[in-house]
């Protein structure tokens, strides 16, 4: 449905920084929810705005359906692309009522639908997002959540082929964000509208998407379904950005990598040869912590530095030599801070990748600063 091919765009921001999209390509199938995930400045918003036609790419093509909207010397202006878009600030027009806001896209359409048709379509769209009955309310009197719904209704009212969402949930408070996340997912699944979503929140991306593209420095570093992205990160950056975990770096040996003063058994990609640098990322929920040894493979002895009770789990930090390992244990387990513990990395969860040199910094530094 949507094909983006070798998109390039560079510009300098007001503060002199350079932002760029470097050769981004991806395809979104009809009816799918596709998310561009990455930290700020990674080029995800620029990519989205290029699809919308609000930015003019330097090169590359963008096609919606069979029609090339950008590239090959043609550029379809934004208002002639069949797209609905929700902005981060919602961009609800303050001088209009709820009805007028939602009716605007239909009133701008050519040919313009009849008054009765507009009324019916607007009511349908408002009902879809749960704003029925508020038609005559002035837009500035809406709450944040209501403005968000209205922005969504406005984007959907003329049944566009493509829906673009630019961090639509980031301005809501936590509880409301969670609720809107569910509603948004259900709405998209129900309408089967092709959707491109931009966010820096990995939980949102995992929850909402059929496919996720992780972006870094203007390029897509990994693309895949939520499970794949989380469980089989293709790089240190992707592993670090999507979820937390312990990074073990070492040299490839037969059947594993050298780390933690010994060998950690793991599955290795076929292109890694012995002696090359590899990286193993261990998600906290896959690390098992025990008070007594069970003499299983990949079991190491460490010292429990932190065991914080968080209700649904126990957040543990274990030091093995100079490495800090993060683990998530069941809250009923009884462990004391400072005691010796046995940590197991179940072999089925250990998949190494080529080391790209990326390391999460926060945890290590916290302890070093404490000791200094």
């Amino acid at each position, binding site marked *: 449905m949507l094909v983006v091919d070798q998109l390039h765009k560079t510009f300098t*921001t*007001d503060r002199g920084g350079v932002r760029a999209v470097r050769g981004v390509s991806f395809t979104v199938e009809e009816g799918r929810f596709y998310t561009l995930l990455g930290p700020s400045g990674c080029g995800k918003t620029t990519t989205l705005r290029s699809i*919308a*036609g*609000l930015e*003019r790419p330097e090169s590359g093509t963008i096609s919606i359906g069979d029609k090339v909207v950008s590239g090959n010397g043609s550029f379809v*202006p*934004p*208002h*002639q692309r069949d*797209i*609905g*878009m929700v*902005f*981060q*600030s*919602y*961009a*609800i*027009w*303050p*001088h*209009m009522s709820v009805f007028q806001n939602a009716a*605007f*896209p239909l009133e*701008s*359409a050519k040919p313009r639908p009849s008054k009765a048709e507009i009324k019916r379509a607007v009511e349908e769209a408002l009902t879809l997002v749960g704003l029925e009955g508020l038609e005559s309310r002035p837009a*500035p009197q809406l709450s944040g959540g209501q403005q968000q719904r209205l*922005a969504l209704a*406005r*984007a959907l009212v*003329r049944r566009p082929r493509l829906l*673009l969402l630019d961090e639509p949930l980031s*301005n809501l408070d936590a509880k409301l964000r969670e609720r809107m996340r569910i509603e948004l997912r259900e709405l998209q699944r129900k309408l089967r509208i092709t959707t491109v979503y931009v966010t820096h929140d990995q939980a949102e991306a995992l929850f909402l998407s059929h496919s996720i593209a992780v972006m870094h420095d203007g390029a897509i570093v990994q693309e895949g379904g939520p499970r794949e992205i989380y469980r089989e990160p293709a790089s240190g950056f992707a592993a670090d950005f999507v979820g937390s975990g312990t990074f073990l770096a070492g040299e490839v040996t037969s059947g594993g990598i050298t780390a933690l003063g010994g060998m950690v058994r793991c599955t290795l990609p076929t292109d890694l040869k012995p002696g090359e640098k590899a990286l193993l990322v261990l998600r906290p929920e896959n690390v098992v912590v025990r008070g007594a040894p069970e003499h299983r493979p990949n079991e190491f002895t460490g010292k429990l530095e932190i065991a914080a009770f968080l209700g649904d789990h126990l957040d543990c930090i274990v030091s093995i030599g100079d490495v800090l390992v993060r683990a998530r244990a069941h809250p009923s387990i009884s462990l004391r801070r400072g005691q010796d513990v046995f940590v197991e990395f179940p072999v089925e969860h250990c998949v190494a990748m080529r080391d790209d040199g990326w390391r999460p910094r926060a945890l290590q530094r916290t302890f070093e600063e404490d000791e200094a």
Partner: protein
Amino acid sequence: MTSQAVGIVAAAARTRRLPRPGRGTLVVLGLAAVLAYLAAYPLAMLILGTFGVDGEISKGFTLDNFANAYGSGRTFTLFENSLIYAGGVGLLALTLGTGLAWIVERTNTPYRRAFFALSIVPIIIPGIVSTIAWIFLLSGRIGLISKAISTVFGLSEAPFTIYSMPGMIWAEGLHLSPLVFLLMTAAFQSMDPSLEESALMSGASTLHTLRRVTLPVLAPALASSALIMAIRGLESFEVPRLIGTPADIPVFTGEIYRALHGTSADYGEAGALSMTLMVVTLIGIVAYQRLISRSERFATITGKAYRPRQIDIGRWRYVTFAGLLLYVILLVGLPFLALVFVSLLPYYAPDLSLLEKASMANYTKTIGWYGVQRGVMNSVLLGAIAATLVTMLTAVVAWIITKTKLRGRGLLDALAFIPITIPGMVLGVALILQYLSPAFRIIPIYGTLWILVICYLIRYMPYGMRANSSAMVQLHRELEEAGSAAGGSWLTTFRRVTMPLLRPALVASWLYIFIVSVRELGASVLLTNQDTIVLAVTIFEQYEVGQLGMVASLSVMLIVSLVVVVAVIQRVSSRFGVRQEA
């Protein structure tokens, strides 16, 4: 023993607590008295004088002044003209300024950023100078443009002249349009561009978006800009006097001047005219304030800084660029060239062949003339004194308003704001009525430079307040509290901490008040005499007696010096991040 202890504690509490608010209250009361004397007293005298025989209430109550002012058949014409003139000025300035702001803020017109410099034009070209320049350009018989057009089309006389209502509106509206540009640029910047982007994404074209979203969202800002320009047009003296009076198109300020400088000075009639002008201005200012607060509520829905966004307008960007160039030519290029042209000629005629006789004679003559020398000396001296006094007084008042919780500080704020509603010429009339009244014989400053000092002090107090309070609001109170915590007295802290931190803002506001004082005309023209004449009045008077060469050369020199001063302000402001408003 217990009662003794209680007594000691009570005494300690007294010495610790009581004197402080006491002293603070005294300071507030003192300042309130000063401000009331400066700002409110002249107004009271104006109102009383308006109802007094010969402008003096002590000679008896009368309504004759109003009868004189409004009794003639001219009254209707006066109101009609003033309304059309103010409305026309507001509309023209709004159209030009908003169009410009849209082009610069929202399109990809080449070199658009360079046009931001336009906003300083009204500072470097005083109203009196631009008015005279446009007379040189568009006067029916002697205008350079008029002459060129009538020659090209073989007419005996140009089809238009500056001496008409459209001419007046053109001269004033064009002169004020950069201020609208400044206001609307800010409005565009504070408007979320995604409001417009979402209209585009809804299928609306650029024009449709402009009409249905951009302009309605900016409506309060547009209305308030037009209103404030209409008020400024109405308050201004230059165009009504230099163009309106010869064309027999009476407007308020022109009529006030006529009442005072006719066959005999009629202070009562001038007062009655001033009253109406002030009431109209007051209504306008109140409406403006309401609109502004509404537009702020409108604009700050999300209340964050937006990244600027430009619409790609394709080939139209060359059209808009040409528009910007044409505007600069009209606003600065032609008027300045006309002044230079006139300043080089031995006598003035709209004839380019006269350039063969061009010389610097006018400049030598102007610089050497004692009248100019005195005007320059007085202007610089008055400007410096006024700027210093305003800055000092408003620094203290602004500090009390923004940094203390003293009772009565709201009153100080209100008093210091009053003068913004008094047009320059009305203030001049009020000061005449005040200092010529019998009760003020003991303060004989009428006819001296001191009355001008008082006048500028009153007029520019609101400017100083605005500059100082916005700077002080940004000054974190803990910086000062640290000063007191370190053992500094209030005065020490103010002198060693507050003042140095505010210095850049104070310097910028000093320079700005200096400039506006030097160019002040509406009040000065009523309050000066041969000895106390100031530069702007010199230009005005020499124009009235037909010394065009001298007027032109003086204007050129004034513009050049103001460019230098403004360059200094810009350096100071940008180095210290101080915003300066026109």
